[in-house]
Every structure is written in C-alpha cells, then in structure tokens.
C-alpha cells in the first residue's frame, strides 16, 4: 500500500513540478539566502546578550577588535592599542569610517556606546570593570579600570560602536531614542545605524530579514562579494536541512547531529564542523546530598561516567569529550588533563567512602536546550547504576527547566556554559564559586561546591596583567576543580554549519559561532 501511495504521489508530483514556476534567481547581484534556527530578537544590539544578537552585530556593526579563527585579536575599528599604565589603555581608532547614515565615526561614538553598554541589564555585568571611557581626541579613546584588568581586549570584542547622533533625541512618542527596553517598542529595537558591512532593509519578525551591502563600507580589503542577504528563521531541524538540500537556501546553521551524515554525503552541500567552546556537564548538589560532600564520592561519579562513549556513540563524534571547563585555546586549559573513566576505581572509591551499596538521587536535564541533552542524561543515569546509584531522572523543556534550575530542584542538574568573555575565569565565577546572592558569584553553581581559596585565586588572576602568570593561576584552578571533582564534565558541544558548494564559508566561521559574513565570498555559478 505504501508503495502505491508513493507511486501515486510521484505521478501527481511530477505533473505539478512540471507546471510549477520556480522563483526567479537570475540576477547580476550576488544573494546569500540563509536559514538560522531563529532570527534576532531585536535590532537593538544592547537589548540581549545572546548568540543571535551578536551574529547580527557582526553583520551590521564592527567591533573595535575581533577574534580570529585561532582566537587571536584582529584590529577592526581600533587599529592599535597600548597599555599606558596598569589601569589605563589607550586605543587608536580607524579614520575615515562612516556610519550607515553618513555620520562620521569618532571617539565620541565609542564613549557613547560603552556608556550605553554599562546601562544595559545584559551587558552591564561584564562591563562593570570599566570605570570610565574618555575621548582624548577624535581618533583616540582611553579606557580606565578601577583595578588592573587583563581582559580589556576581550571586552573590546563586544564594543560595536553605534551611531550616537542617530540615537540621540526623542522619537515620535517622546521617548529617548537610546533607551533600552526589554519588552516593548523602543526606537533602537526597530532602527539601526552602525558601521558594518550590511544595512537592514526589512525585518519581518519570525519570518524574514533582508540585508543589503553597505556601499560605503570602510573595509575595502574585505573579499566579501555578497550584495544581499536574506535570513529566514527555520526552527524545525528537518526543514532547515531540507531547505539547503533542495537549493532553497545557500547556508544553514546549526546542522542537527542526526542529519550530519546526510549533509556530508550530499553533493549539493558541504559541511563544516568545529570543536566548540560550550561545556556540557553535571553539578552534584552538596547541600541536597550529604554524600556529595565527600570528594571520594564525587570522584567515583566522575570515574563512572564514560565521556568518550557519549561523545562517540550518542553524539556521533559531534562533541569533544572533556575533563575540565576550559576548551583548547583558553588560558586555563590544561593539555594533559585526562578523562577519568575507570569503573573499577569508581566502585572502589564508593566502597572506601562507605557507599558500596549506593544511594538514590534525583537528576534533572533539559530536553530541548543542548544537542541530545535528554539522551545524554539517560546515558549518565545508566552509567551511574553501575556504581549502585539509583537515579530518578526528569527531563523538561528549557522554558520550564531553568526555573527548576534556579530552585536547585534536583541532586544532579545538567547545564551547558559558554564563557561570554571567552576566558577561563568566567567558568569558575558563575559555576563553581562559593554561591553569594549579593555579589552574584556562583549564580549557576547548582553543586554548591565551595572552595574559598579558589575564589581568592581567581580574584587575583583577574588583577594579573601578566597573561602568562595569569594563565598559570587559571590552570591551577582547573587542576583543583578536577582533583576535587567539583562537577562531572561531559564534553564540549561541536558546532556545525552547512552551505551550498559555491559558498566559501570556511574562512568566515569561528568557534564563537559569529560568522563574519561581511567577508563571505560566493563563487559565480555558470
């Protein structure tokens, strides 16, 4: 019966495709049609600190400096920088740059942008170290921090100067044009002027977004040859892949792990994967389970979990198994740190700690936040059964999960973390620092692990301007966290993009997942 149906469908379909008029694609312009899983929530790049907003920022604005593929700094709107003293940095700005409106880009715009960042609820935390910014002259800005701060350049990758003149004054409703509104209509959420390679022509939320190349783009050396970009959000994984394979779009991200093989083998598409920087791991709550206060029990849990098996079989190689927070390229990364998996040792440690018969715990994980999150949690629960730990697992959609997470509602909870500052200290500050509601330290520390010495060490590292010394300190933190088994690391989730064969995406991709589409080259098709 199924065959008949397919046959019938094929006959019907063949007649229909014959009659169908395909959308006209022939034009002298080069157009990139791309599909992400979501479109940016707003045109105000300070409204939310999220991947989507930063991807937009890199299209419509330019940062002062940006990361290269090797995690080095590349000058953009800042051409040079020097440390004047321990707490002062001076940056020279690029001259002759214009905003989309035609206004000239000056140091005043940088000052204005940083001051606005310091007001943004999402960005103000990471910009807190900057005490003041001043324009020395039209092409020089000076950053002052209260204390020596080694990560100023990391922060500069988040400074996308906005057109201060364009955003000054009030809109029709009498509201200031520069206000940042989370839930409501602000001028900045619907209007945009930056220095970037693209201007926004149209934004139909949730449906379609169109960009056009900025004709006066300052970077004349950029190889980018794309005139128009049409971004369509396609949240359904299978449809996004189908759209690429059928030639409806030229570039998609992310590629779902289940379809990796299909895309890799297709002649109509090419796949690019990279080891990512988002660590997926489990917290073990010491406040809820007394046994977790014993480092031997935590180590036993770590010994019982087979990270390589999860990465190979469950993630189909789409993950890099981890033994620490920091991925390769980060200051705190320790090359020699090995994954623990050793079942006998795990059992021995449990016996030593007096839990040979195991105990019962509860576990929670999201089921639509990370790649294969629910399956990973099931795998870990099964692995823990081998050291006689009985796991009561509950998986939830992300919208509900984070509420439970904030309540610390289970003994083991899964979380994935990407360091906004691309720096190792960030992991400890949010995930393993002694929880303190007032300072916000350890905000996501659902393990309630607390080691004041590590907190002190990270605080010192954050004042250490000698980057080599600082790296040593951060590595010491990673080592201690590993030795004490503060958490159960699993893997760094890989990133995947796919594009039509004539779209040269490889050079513009990076582990932060901010494709530099301004530099994208599309080969002409005959």
């Amino acid at each position, binding site marked *: 019966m199924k065959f008949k*149906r397919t046959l019938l469908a094929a006959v019907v*379909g063949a007649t229909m495709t014959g009659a*169908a008029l395909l959308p006209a694609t022939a034009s002298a312009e080069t157009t990139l049609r791309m599909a992400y899983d979501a479109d940016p*929530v707003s045109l105000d790049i300070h409204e939310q600190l999220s991947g989507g907003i930063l991807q937009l920022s890199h299209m419509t604005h330019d940062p002062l400096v940006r990361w290269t593929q090797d995690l080095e700094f590349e000058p953009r709107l800042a051409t040079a920088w020097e440390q004047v003293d321990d707490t002062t940095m001076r940056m020279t700005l690029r001259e002759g740059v214009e905003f989309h409106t035609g206004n000239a880009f000056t140091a005043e715009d940088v000052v204005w942008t940083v001051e606005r960042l310091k007001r943004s609820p999402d960005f103000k*935390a990471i910009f807190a170290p900057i005490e003041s910014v001043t324009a020395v002259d039209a092409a020089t800005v000076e950053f002052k921090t209260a204390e020596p701060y080694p990560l100023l350049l990391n922060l500069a990758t988040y400074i996308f100067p906005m057109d201060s003149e364009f955003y000054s004054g009030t809109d029709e409703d009498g509201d200031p044009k520069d206000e940042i509104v989370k839930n409501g209509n602000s001028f900045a959420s619907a209007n945009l002027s930056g220095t970037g390679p693209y201007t926004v022509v149209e934004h139909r*939320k949730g449906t379609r977004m169109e960009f056009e190349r900025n004709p006066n783009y300052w970077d004349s050396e950029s190889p980018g040859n794309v005139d128009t970009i049409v971004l369509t959000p396609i949240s359904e994984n299978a449809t996004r892949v*189908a759209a690429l394979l*059928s030639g409806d779009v030229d570039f998609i991200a992310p590629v779902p792990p289940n379809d990796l093989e299909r895309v890799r083998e297709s002649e109509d598409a090419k796949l690019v994967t990279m080891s990512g920087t988002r660590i997926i791991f489990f917290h073990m709550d010491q406040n809820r389970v007394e046994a977790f206060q014993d480092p031997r029990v935590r180590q036993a849990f770590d010994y019982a979990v087979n990270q390589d098996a999860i990465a190979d079989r469950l993630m189909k190689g789409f993950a890099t198994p981890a033994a620490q927070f920091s991925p390769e390229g980060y200051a705190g990364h320790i090359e020699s740190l090995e994954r623990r998996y050793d079942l006998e040792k795990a059992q021995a440690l449990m016996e030593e700690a007096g839990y040979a018969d195991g105990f019962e715990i509860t576990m929670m994980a999201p089921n639509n936040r990370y790649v294969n999150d629910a399956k990973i949690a099931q795998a870990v629960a099964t692995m823990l059964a081998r050291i006689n730990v009985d796991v009561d697992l509950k998986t939830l959609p992300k919208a509900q999960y984070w509420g439970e997470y904030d309540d610390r509602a289970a003994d083991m909870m899964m979380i994935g973390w990407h360091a906004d500052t691309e720096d190792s200290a960030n992991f400890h500050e949010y995930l393993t620092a002694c929880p303190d509601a007032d300072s916000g330290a350890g905000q996501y520390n659902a393990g309630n692990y607390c080691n004041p010495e590590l907190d002190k060490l990270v605080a010192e590292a954050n004042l250490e301007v000698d980057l080599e010394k600082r790296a040593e300190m951060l590595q010491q933190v990673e080592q201690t966290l590993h030795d004490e088994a503060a958490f159960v690391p699993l893997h760094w989730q890989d990133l995947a993009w796919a594009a039509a064969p004539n779209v040269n995406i490889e050079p513009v991709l990076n582990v932060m997942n901010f494709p530099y589409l301004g530099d994208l080259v599309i080969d002409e098709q005959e």
Partner: protein
Amino acid sequence: MIAFLIKRLFHALLVMFVISIIAFSIQDNLGDPIQQMVGQSVPESEREALREELGLNDPFLVQYLRFAKNAVQLDFGYSYIFNEPTTEVVLRHLPATLELVAATTLLIVLLSVPIGVYSAIKPRALLSRFFMGVSIVGISIPVFLTAIVLIQLFAIGVTWTPFPADTGWGSWLNDLITTEGGMPAYGRGDPVHVFGTWYTNFASTDGLVYLVLPAISLASIMLPLFIRLIRAEMLEVLQSEYVKFARAKGISLRRIYFLHALKNTMLPVITVGGVQIGTLVAYTILTETVFQWPGMGLMFLNAINRSDIPLIVTYLMIVGLIFVITNTLVDLIYGLVNPTVKLTGKPA
C-alpha cells in the same frame, strides 16, 4: 435569527472567558519568561527588577483582573517576543493560516466529493478499493511524517533505480518513480500584499506553488475521513425508499445520484465538516512547523517555547472565537440546506 446570533455572541464571550481563565491558570507551568529575555550572565537582581516591572510577582487574581480589565477594552497585552500588542501579532499571522486552511478545504471538497460518490456508486470497482485502501494509510500516517515525506520527494527529490536502466521499459519505470524535487520546502515565498496585514498566496502562480505541499499534507488527515464519510452516507441514501422509487420512475441515474441522493448525503457531512475546520486550524500547528509556514500555528509554538504568556492567552482566545464562528456558520448553512431545521430549536 437575530436572537440566535445574539445567543451565539454570548456563547463566544463565555468560551473566551473560560479559555482566558484556563490559560492564565496554567501560566506558572509554562516556564519563566524572564529566562528567555535575558542573557545567562544577567544577575538575579536585574531579573527580579524586570519581573516586578512586568507584574509577574503579583498574585494570580491581581494579574488576572488587570488582564481582564484591559481585555474588555480589547487590549490583550504585549507579546514578550515580538514587543508588540499581541492582537497585532496574531492578526499579522492570521491570514497565512486562513489561506492555508482555505486551500486545504478547497482540496478536500474537490477531491472527497467525487471520490466518495464514485466509491459509493461502484463499491466493488478496483479503483474504489484502491481509494479505500489509500485512505486507510492516509488516516494512519501522522501529519508531520506526511509532510517530511512530501518534502523529501518533491523538494529535495529522490533518485530510485530498482529497474534495469539500460532497457527502454526499465528506464521509463525508473523515471516514473524518480522525483526531481524543486518544490519550495518552507515559508510562503513572496506573497502579494492585499490590504492591512493580509498578504496573499492566491494571487500568483508563484504563490500557489508555495501552498501546494503544506496544503496536501494538511489535507492528508481530513481527506480520507471525508471520503469515507461521504461514501458511507451515500451508500445508506442509495438504499433508501425514495431512491428506489426514483429509479422505478425512470429518472436518469445521474440526476438521482447527484441531485437527489447527494443533497441528503451532504447534511451530516456539513455538520462534521464545520467542526473539522476548527480542528484543521489546530492541526496547522504541526504543518506550519514542518513547512515553516509563517502562520498562527508556528507563532503559537514559538510562544510556548519562549513562555510568551500574553501571546499564548490571546491565541487560545482567538482560536476559541474561530470555533464558535465556524459552528455558527455551519448551523446557518444547515438551515439553508435543510429547511425543516429551525435555528431557534423550536419544532417547525
């Protein structure tokens, strides 16, 4: 008639009131909208301030009364994800869904009536059995699977060569079962603006092409149901005394089938159809998700994923309203088809 409509208006208001209460009372289980609005490193104090600003800390009754007071003035609040009044968001997505439902309904009517009548007139014919068999398969395959299969066949295309390609008949058969692809797999292309928020796909061939796959997959669940319903009703009517009498009288078969019998067959079909159109709107959630059709269903799923409570409540209330309206229309049409039925319920 007027009394009937007024009564129905009260029905609609009651339905919307009940839905709003239900939707409001489940909002605590829908997750924390703040989590969706801010980045991961935003401190708890900022979140608390935002929660306070949005009035999420107030007790249930206070929140509901505030909502109800505004709703009476047709203000259903602001969507968290779209940053616009929810009514505007829903109205913008409504035409896409209605067009999809309209195309599907058209497809169902045009196919189910002839096929249903045919298989009732000739129940033993090979073609009738084939239709019945296919409809069983159609009813048992979930919408999203149909949709994905359609995309694979007609958007991506499949090459299948089970027959020897070097022989003439073999390559002919291979070509027959190999599909080219090329149909659009997502979205609605570049619809033509009509007025207000209404962009239509019906105005150009280009737009119609985008409708084909979503409409077929949406129809796949209802079409078999209607074929079977029409066939069963028709079979019953054909057994009735008046059809036998008409035959005996020598009236042409075509006149009996399509004028006398079909008219009586359609009565229950219209009742079921009216209810099913409402259900169709609900099924669009699946179809629209797979085809990324920018209608209300897709919008609703996004709203749920991101705990956009005001949008969820507005959507549910509007869908409730659509149900009441279609049911009212069905009752009116029913009265036209069968004049012995009085709307007010009093015996004729």
